[in-house]
């Protein structure tokens, strides 16, 4: 039996968004009757605005990264369902003050189709807008087909660095360049240990046998392409680190930022255990960790598991990473 704090299934996303806006009322603003989460204090006119449309159910998800130096708008659909392109377009127009717009899309079929619809509608209005994709999940397409890969939590790296440049007054072209550079330097891999329950149907999704860990489970907990025996953190995380390092590849002497993204039911205690395993393992491969972030950002309901993302730094990305930002889920002062 599903035991979740819920009211009517059809109200879940409305209530989720209203509640998230209310618990972050000094940072976020949600116009009543919409799914358009935006900054409480809009960005200065003329600076590039970063917008995204996606599905709910991953709270905080990309809503958590709205704020100074980060996103300006996240237009959400229903759970695990991208918002309609036409509605996303209306959302973009609602914050349009003539500033350039960067429309960002995490590479998932629904997000891409609806993002393309919104983008082409904005182009018809002669808006100054560009579209960028994000893809980082190495489990979803082989090396050499990076553009086929899905977007994962490593998107934080592109949002943070491109968002910082936008706040500095970077041009739309420059913000696009930095977004793409951070994306191309990012690799992500996920691991799921348990199942999750769909809040509307009550169905148990993506069950993983007790003795296995599901590698590459993805953000909806889909059965991953590979599984490994469930064992110690050091062994499982070590293997994931190797897969990430070899895919990029990250070379001895490289400096990286590590993101440990909890899927919902993995405790901060466990994420801390994982963090020191990551540090130890990448050090053994000659790679230096410059900064780390751990927390529940892009989640899959109450699934236990996490995704691990690396960003390879250069001077420009490091500087932009260090710029201040302020959002409900990630703040740098």
């Amino acid at each position: 039996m599903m035991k979740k704090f819920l009211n009517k299934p059809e109200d879940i996303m409305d209530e989720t968004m209203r509640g998230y806006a209310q618990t972050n009322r000094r940072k976020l603003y949600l116009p009543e009757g919409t799914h358009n989460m935006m900054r409480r204090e809009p960005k200065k006119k003329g600076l590039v605005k970063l917008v995204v449309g996606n599905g709910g159910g991953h709270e905080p998800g990309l809503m958590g990264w709205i704020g100074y130096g980060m996103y300006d708008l996240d237009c959400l659909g229903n759970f695990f369902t991208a918002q309609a392109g036409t509605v996303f377009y209306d959302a973009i127009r609602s914050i349009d003050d003539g500033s350039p717009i960067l429309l960002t899309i995490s590479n998932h079929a629904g997000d891409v189709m609806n993002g393309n619809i919104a983008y082409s509608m904005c182009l018809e209005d002669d808006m100054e807008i560009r579209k960028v994709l994000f893809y980082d999940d190495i489990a979803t397409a082989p090396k050499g087909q990076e553009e086929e890969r899905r977007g994962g939590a490593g998107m934080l790296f592109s949002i943070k660095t491109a968002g910082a440049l936008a706040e500095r007054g970077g041009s739309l072209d420059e913000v696009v360049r930095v977004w793409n550079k951070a994306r191309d330097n990012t690799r992500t891999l996920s691991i799921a240990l348990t199942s999750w329950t769909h809040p509307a149907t009550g169905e148990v999704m993506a069950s993983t046998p007790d003795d296995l860990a599901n590698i590459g489970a993805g953000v909806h907990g889909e059965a991953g392409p590979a599984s490994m025996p469930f064992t110690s953190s050091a062994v499982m995380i070590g293997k994931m680190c190797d897969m990430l390092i070899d895919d990029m590849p990250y070379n001895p002497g490289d400096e990286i930022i590590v993101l440990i993204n909890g899927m919902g039911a993995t405790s901060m205690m466990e994420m801390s255990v994982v963090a020191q395993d990551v540090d130890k393992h990448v050090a053994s491969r000659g790679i230096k960790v410059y900064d780390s972030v751990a927390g529940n950002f892009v989640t899959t309901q109450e699934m236990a598991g996490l995704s691990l993302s690396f960003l390879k730094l250069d001077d420009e990305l490091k500087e932009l990473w260090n710029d201040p930002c302020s959002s409900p889920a990630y703040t740098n002062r």
Partner: protein
Amino acid sequence: MTTQEIQQMMLSVAEEMTRHTEMLCELDSYIGDGDHGITIERGFKAVMEQIDGKSFETPVSVFVAAGDAFMNTTGGAIGPLMGSFFRGARKKLAEAREWGAEEFEVFLSSGLRQIKLVGEANEGDRTLVDALSPAVDAYSKARAEGAALDECMKKAADAAEAGAQATKNMIAKKGRAKFLGEKSLGYVDAGATSMSLLIRTMSNLVHS
């Protein structure tokens, strides 16, 4: 069929499409996230609200309104796909006042073309194209042989059902299921099933 008859048909089709929620969710749960039926129900409820009691000039404007309503309320991948299916013939049939076998063929084939364009999907990718494409072929063949509208639609519905069943043996190349590779074998695609249901329901309601 007149505009009013098409409107009545679309209402009944939409109502019928809201009655398979559980079955479609179950199909989706094997390799998807198990909510396809809910999305279909939500979309077609919106279609009913959008066209019930309204007055339309042409048959195609009924379908365009249905497509807009479906697309705007569902999003995801299915929204743009179903939406473009219904809207596909909006230019070609803009002037047609009554629809017979010829107009329905244009409607189905234009819908297929739009879906393939928007979804960048082809036959064999294990999507709703695999139900719709054989349906269009069967329809055209029947019509070339001189069959009337209801007979053409019946052939199309049979072919759509066979096509949806055949997705069992296809490895997904689109959508979330594509990341499963061979694990997607053995299950019927939920989107293709919805499409075959839709065509079957229409075939039960058209008349020459």
